[in-house]
C-alpha cells in the first residue's frame, strides 16, 4: 500500500509530518451526552494519532457495546471500525490482528464491557500478549443501559439512583499487572496533558498496552456520592509521574533534573520520559507497583500515569512465530501445498 497524500486541505490547518491535519483524524459527530468523559478521550485519541503521524487507514479500531464502545465512530473516520458485540471485542481484535499484523489495533471498551461480560476475553487477550492498545473508558457504571453499577464501581459509593454499592470493585490495572500485561497505565479523561502522551506511548508499545481511563458519566455517575465523578477524581488523583512521549528520532533534551527523570526506550526507538517521579516510583518494578496500587486503594487514592511497563514483553505474533507477510495478503501460491503434495497425502492413506 503506498501512501497517498490527502488533498485539498485548508492551508491554514496545521499539518503533521505526513501532511495530515487534525481533521483527518476526526470522526462523526458524537451522540454522547454533553460533557461525557468519553468524548474527551476520543479527542485525546485524535490528538495522539495526529501527533504520532499515524496513517489513519493503518489503524483498525474495535469495540464492544456501550456508550464507550460507540466512540470509535467519533474518531478516525478514515480507519475501519468494528463495533462488535458486548464484551467480545478482544476476540474480534485477536482475529483481526492475526489476519494482518501490519495495522495498528486500537480496542475501546467500557467497564461493563470489559470487567463483567468481557472479563474472560480481557484476561485472555492479556495472557496472549495481544498487540493492541486497549482503552477502557471507565465510568464505574453502565452508561448506555442507564446507570447500573459496574464491577469497577467502588464499594460504598452512592449511585445517582440513591443506593450504596455493596460489592468490592475490580481494579483493572491491578488485574492486568497480575496477568502479565506489559504496559499498564491509568489516567483521567479530564487530564489531556497526561492522557495524550500515554496514548501515544501505548500505541508505540509492542504487546498488550492497557489504559484504564477514568471517564465520568455525567448523566448517571457524576453525583456527590460518586467515586467516579469529575470532582472526586480530581481530588483523589495521585499522579505518579509527569510524562512525555518522544517519538523515534526526536532529539532528547534534558529539561529535568537527573534524579527525577527516567527514560524508557521502546522497541521502535521512541522514548517515554517520566519526570516529576514520585518518591521511589519505578514502573518497571512489578512488586512495587502492585503494592502501591493496593495501598492507594486502601487510602482511596487514584494513581495515574504510567503504572507499569515491561519492555521485554513479546507480542503475540512473535510468540507464535508468524510470518512477516500479513496473512490476509497471502495468495493461493503461498497457501496451497499443491496437487502433488495432496497425492502424497492421499498415498499415506492408501
Amino acid at each position, binding site marked *: 500500500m503506498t501512501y497517498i497524500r490527502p488533498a485539498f486541505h485548508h492551508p491554514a490547518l496545521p499539518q503533521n509530518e505526513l501532511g495530515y491535519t487534525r481533521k483527518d483524524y476526526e470522526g462523526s459527530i458524537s451522540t454522547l451526552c454533553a460533557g461525557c468523559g468519553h468524548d474527551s478521550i476520543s479527542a485525546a485519541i485524535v490528538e495522539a494519532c495526529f501527533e504520532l503521524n499515524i496513517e489513519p487507514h493503518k489503524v483498525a479500531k474495535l469495540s464492544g457495546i456501550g456508550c464507550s464502545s460507540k466512540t470509535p465512530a467519533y474518531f478516525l473516520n478514515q480507519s475501519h471500525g*468494528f463495533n*462488535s458485540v458486548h464484551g467480545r471485542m478482544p476476540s474480534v481484535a485477536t482475529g*483481526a490482528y492475526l489476519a494482518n499484523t501490519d495495522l495498528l489495533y486500537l480496542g475501546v471498551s467500557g467497564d461493563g464491557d470489559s470487567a463483567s461480560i468481557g472479563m*474472560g476475553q480481557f484476561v*485472555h487477550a492479556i495472557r496472549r500478549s495481544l498487540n493492541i492498545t486497549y482503552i477502557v473508558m471507565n465510568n464505574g457504571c453502565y452508561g448506555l443501559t442507564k446507570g447500573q453499577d459496574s464491577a469497577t464501581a467502588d464499594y460504598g459509593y452512592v449511585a445517582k439512583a440513591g443506593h450504596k454499592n455493596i460489592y468490592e470493585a475490580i481494579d483493572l490495572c491491578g488485574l492486568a499487572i497480575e496477568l502479565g500485561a506489559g504496559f499498564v497505565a491509568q489516567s483521567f479523561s479530564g487530564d489531556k496533558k497526561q492522557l495524550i502522551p500515554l496514548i501515544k506511548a501505548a500505541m508505540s508499545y509492542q504487546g498488550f498496552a492497557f489504559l484504564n481511563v477514568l471517564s465520568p458519566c455525567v448523566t448517571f455517575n457524576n453525583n456527590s456520592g460518586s467515586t467516579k465523578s469529575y470532582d472526586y477524581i480530581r481530588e483523589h488523583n495521585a499522579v505518579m509521574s509527569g510524562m512525555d512521549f518522544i517519538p523515534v528520532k526526536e532529539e532528547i533534551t534534558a529539561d529535568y533534573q537527573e534524579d527525577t527523570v527516567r527514560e524508557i526506550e521502546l522497541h521502535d526507538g521512541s522514548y517515554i520520559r517520566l519526570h516529576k517521579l514520585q518518591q521511589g516510583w519505578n514502573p518497571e518494578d512489578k512488586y512495587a507497583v502492585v503494592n502501591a496500587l493496593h495501598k492507594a486503594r486502601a487510602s482511596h487514592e487514584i494513581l495515574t500515569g504510567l503504572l507499569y511497563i515491561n519492555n521485554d514483553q513479546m507480542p503475540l505474533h512473535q510468540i507464535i512465530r508468524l510470518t512477516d507477510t500479513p496473512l*490476509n495478503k497471502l495468495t493461493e501460491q503461498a497457501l496451497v501445498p499443491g*496437487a502433488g503434495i495432496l497425492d502424497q497425502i492421499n498415498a499415506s492413506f492408501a
Partner: protein
Amino acid sequence: MSGINDFVIRFANVNGTGSASANFLFAKTLFRMGIPVSPKNIFPSNIQGLPTWYEVRVCDKGYLGRREGIDLMVCVNPQSLEKDVASVKDGGYFLYDSTKPLHTEFLRSDIHYLPVPLMSLCNENFTDARQKQLFKNMVYVGALAVLLNLDFEVIAQLVGEQFKGKEKLIQPNILALNLGADYVRKHFDFPLSFHAEKRNLTHGKIMIDGNTAAALGALYGGATVVPWYPITPSTSLVDAFTEYAEQYRVDPETGRKNFAVIQAEDELAAMGMVIGAMWNGARAFTATSGPGLSLMNEFLGLAYFAEIPAVLIDVQRAGPSTGMPTRTQQSDVLLAAYASHGDTKNVLLFPSTPDECFELTATAFDLAEDLQTPVIVMSDLDLGMNDHISEPLHWQNGRTYNRGKVLSAEELEQTKGWGRYLDVDHDGVPYRTIPGTHPQKGSYFTRGSSHDEYSRYTEDADTYVRIMDRLLLKFHKAATLVPEPEFYGDDVSAEFGIIYFGTTHHAAMEALDMLSAVDLTAYAMRLKAFPFSQKVRQFTERFDKIYVIEQNRDAQMRTLLINELEIHPERLIKVLNYDGTPITADLIVHKISSDIHSSTLIRS
C-alpha cells in the same frame, strides 16, 4: 451366517490399553486386500479403563454403512463380557482371552467359542509389563488373520509402515501376531466359513477419517487463522490441520508460519476471532460440536447481520446439552440453520464422505466470502472420527479462490459513492473493503446494530426493512451457488422419494438396493446444502410421498424442507434414528416398508 467378505466383527477392549492401533491394523489389512470395509469406533467419554468397542463391517458389495448383528466378537474386556456375549448373532463366534476360564453363565449354546490365552501367551513371550498388555492386541490380530484368512504379507507391510523410524518394534509385533496365528492353527479349524478373500475393490481409494479430510480441505482452501476450543469430536480436526500446516506452511529457513492456530478461551472467543480475521481479509475457520454451536449463537447473528464471512465446522454429536459426547447424531441442523435471535438464516453444507469433507470445507471459504455470511459445514462424529473408504482427495492445480466482492485500492480509486451495503449488482451481495486498503477511500464502520447502505447507524424503519429484505435476496442467491444434491436410484419407475444427507449416505445406498429387491422402487436425493436449490424443490414436487431420513429425534431437516419449500408436511415422512449409533440400512428399510404396508396409497 454371513459369507465371504461379508461379515461384521467387533472388538471389545478397555480404553487406554492401546487396542486402537491393533484394531486399525486389522481393518486396514482388509482394505489393502482390496475389500470394502468400514470400521466404527464406539468409545466412552472417558480416558482410561472403560469399555470401548471397534466394529468392522466387511462387505464385498461395498455397503459401508453400519450393520446390526455381530458375526465375530473379539472380547478382551471382562467388564463388558455379559453384554458382548449377548450381542453375538446366533451361530456366530466369540473369541476371548482364555487365560482365565470363562464363567459358565457366559456360555451360549448357539454360538461358537474361540478361546485364545492372550495374556498367558504374552506373559510367556514378553517381559515388560506395558508390552505384555500392548501385544495382547497383536496376538488377537494374528489369531484373526488365520481365522479370517487375512494376507500376512499385507499385515507385515502395514506393521513396517506403522513403525517406520522405530524399527526395533517391528520384530516383537510380528512375534505377537505369530503367537496368535500359531495358536489358532494348532487349536481351531480355519478359516471360518465367513472370511476374507482378496479383491480389487478398493483400488485407488483411500481410508481416512472425515476430520483429517476436512482439515486438509481447510488447508487447501486457504485457511490461515484457526482459533478453536477443544471439544469431542471436533478436536482431531484442528489437530490434523495443525499437523499438516506445520509441515506445509512453515518457512523451512526461518521457521516462520503462514498460519496461526490459537487455542481460544472458549467457543465464543473462537468464533469472535474467526469473524475478526475474515473481516480483515484472511480466511479463518473454527471447528466445534453442539455445545460450542450454542455458545456461538450471538456471534453468528452478528456475522449474518453485519455480513462478515465466517466458516464453522460443526462435528455433531448426540445432544442435547452435554448429551453423549462420543456418540453421533445430526441434531444441530435446525439451530445451525436459524442460529441466533432475530430473523437469521445461515448457509449449511452437508458432507457425506471424507472426500466431500475436503471439498465442501474448501468450498465453504469460497461461499462465505462470495456471500459474505457464515457458512457451517455440518459433519458428525461418525464421519469425522471414523475411518472411511473414500475417493482420494482432489485438488486441481491452478484452482483459485473466490474471494467475493472485495474492492482493491485501484478499484476504490475508480469507485464513486461506494457504500458497504449498497446492492449495486441487485443480487443481494454488496461490495466490501479490507482495512488498510486505501488511505482515503473504503473505510466504514462495521456494526451489529441496524445500519443503512453506508453502514451508518439507523433506526429508520424503511432502511431497516430494506437491509433485511436484501439479506433474504442474498439467501436466495445462496441457493443458486451452493452444491447441488446428488440423485440415486431409479429415476423412471420410482414410486416414492427418499431424502437424506450426511453420513446416512452409505446406509441409504444399501437400503435403496434392499428396497428394490422387494419391489419398492425409490428415487433418492442426497442433500448437500441449505438453502435448497431449484433441483431440490423439483424433487420434492415430483413425489407425493417422500421419506426424509435423519439422525435426530425431531426431524429437523424435514422442518427446514417444509418451512423453506412450503411442502405439505404429510408428504414428508420421518425416518429417524437418534440413539447415537450410526444409522443402518435395516432400520431405513424397516421403517419405510412398514409405513408403506400400513398405508395404501403410494402414488395418487
